[in-house]
């Protein structure tokens, strides 16, 4: 679907992205990870035919972005970090306008608008003026505008930016619902969002691709096939961390917080050790209050990759 080869973009003297090469298959959901200013938005804007590259080639469905931008745009849905909303229009009017701009035949516009509104739960605000909607609703209108013409490729730049936790969960569910119908590219700061919605990750640091693959592949490449278990027990039993560390496969066990009321410990292991940890704590006579797999693997992969200077791990 997308082939990117040695993509470079200069803004003046500064290279925003340099020699970026990757490919994305049809139907894949790919997450772009990177710190602010890493070049995520620049890459997405080039893929969305918003910006011309300085060098390198980008083809979408066999069409080159610099040669055929208008043909490509017909099949692209783009949601920038600030949704492009005409606040004086009604939701329905705006979506119909977006559909007509993307060359949806006039007689199909109403049906497409209704479909997009259903998918993004906007039916009840169809006749409301966009300027009077809450931030969460506006973000959804932004998403609806990107899918109203059923594009093959959907590009979402920071779709959850500025949303409250409840809205983030809602947006994530919406994005999961898009799987299968479109090839989706999502850039995000939210690591959990990326790990929950994407099949594959592309990690960009200072304009260069520093890692790509599934979360597992990246973890293995970084030597971080480990998982952390967090436990909370009543009181402050002595020497419990050492006993937990003696479980087979556990590389480290440490006390995170301790008080007379409760102690929190973290157990790092190369495999899932939740059952053994629970059994040990019970046999040791501890009152177990909480035990959970602490999924911080993506976070540490991300931190490792983005703190490594471009050119790969040293």
């Amino acid at each position, binding site marked *: 679907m997308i082939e990117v080869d040695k993509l470079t973009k200069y803004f003046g003297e500064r290279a925003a992205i340099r020699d970026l090469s990757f490919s994305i298959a049809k139907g894949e959901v790919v997450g772009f990870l990177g710190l602010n200013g890493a070049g995520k938005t620049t890459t997405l804007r080039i893929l969305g035919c918003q910006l011309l590259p300085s060098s390198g080639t980008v083809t979408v469905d066999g069409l080159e972005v610099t040669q055929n931008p208008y043909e490509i745009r017909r099949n692209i849905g783009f949601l920038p970090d*600030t949704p492009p909303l005409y606040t004086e*229009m009604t939701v329905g009017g705006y979506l119909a306008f977006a559909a007509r701009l993307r060359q949806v035949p006039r007689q199909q516009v109403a049906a497409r608008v209704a479909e997009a509104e259903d998918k993004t739960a906007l039916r009840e605000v169809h006749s409301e003026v966009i300027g009077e909607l809450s931030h969460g609703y506006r973000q959804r209108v932004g998403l609806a505008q990107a899918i109203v013409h059923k594009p093959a490729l959907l590009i979402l730049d920071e779709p959850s930016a500025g949303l409250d936790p409840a809205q983030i969960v809602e947006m994530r569910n919406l994005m999961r619902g898009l799987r299968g119908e479109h090839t989706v590219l999502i850039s995000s700061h939210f690591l959990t969002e990326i790990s929950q919605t994407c099949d594959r990750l592309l990690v960009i640091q200072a304009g260069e691709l520093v890692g790509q693959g599934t979360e597992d592949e990246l973890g293995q490449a970084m030597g971080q096939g480990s998982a952390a278990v967090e436990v909370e027990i009543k009181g402050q039993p002595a020497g419990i961390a050492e006993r937990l560390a003696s479980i087979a496969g556990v590389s480290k066990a440490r006390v995170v917080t301790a008080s007379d009321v409760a102690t929190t410990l973290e157990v790092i292991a190369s495999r899932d050790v939740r059952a053994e940890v629970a059994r040990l704590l019970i046999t040791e006579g501890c009152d177990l209050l909480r035990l959970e797999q602490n999924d911080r693997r993506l976070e540490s992969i991300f931190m490792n990759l983005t703190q490594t200077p471009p050119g790969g791990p040293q």
Partner: protein
Amino acid sequence: MTATWLIARRELAAYLRTMSGYVIAAAALFVQGILFNALALGSEQNRMSTEVLSQFFWVYSGAIIVVSVLLSMRLLAEERQTGTIVLLSSSPVREHEVVLGKFFSSLIFLILITIPSVFMPLLILVNGKLSVGHVATGYLGLFLLGSACLAIGTLGSTLARTQLLAVIISGGMIAGMILLFPMGSLTERPLNDVLFALGLWHRHYPPFQSGLINLRDVVYYVVVTYFALFLAIRVLEARRWR
């Protein structure tokens, strides 16, 4: 063409849905009414109907210039300011369709808010005679001047990042083009001929004001409009590099 019309229609609806369009229209008519009353109707000595009519179109040309700058300031600068330009730039719409759609919407709105002013020349009928040809020619002149100023305003709005900056850029360009004529009188031949011919107002507008249509003047305003829109399209195309 469909995209041009779609954009023009949406833009026109935006003028009508927001306060700014009405405020500009009301202010223009109000100022125009007062000036017409004071300058054209209110003077003491007896005057010919054509003189009054000519004075009406003279006053109105100033209003048209100001209104054109105000109407066109938002066209692209606002889209850039609020980020809505992305909706257009991510759609299969060409730059000339965006610029033309924007320009036509402002031109149609300018025509709409000029129509109510017709009652002023009609007032002349109370105490005098009215030449329909003179009125039509005057309005043609206003239309051509307005179209040139809106095109320059569209260019200013394409160049600017904010609406305020758009007003300053367009206002500056229009003032500069008007001042070419007075600057011409400070220079010698052959430069002054060029400057006289290029001036936006002094040579090309007054014939319309007094009921004369010269092909030269019509062509001048059409060329200015074309050239400003052409530059606006090029500026928008170049933006894909940044």
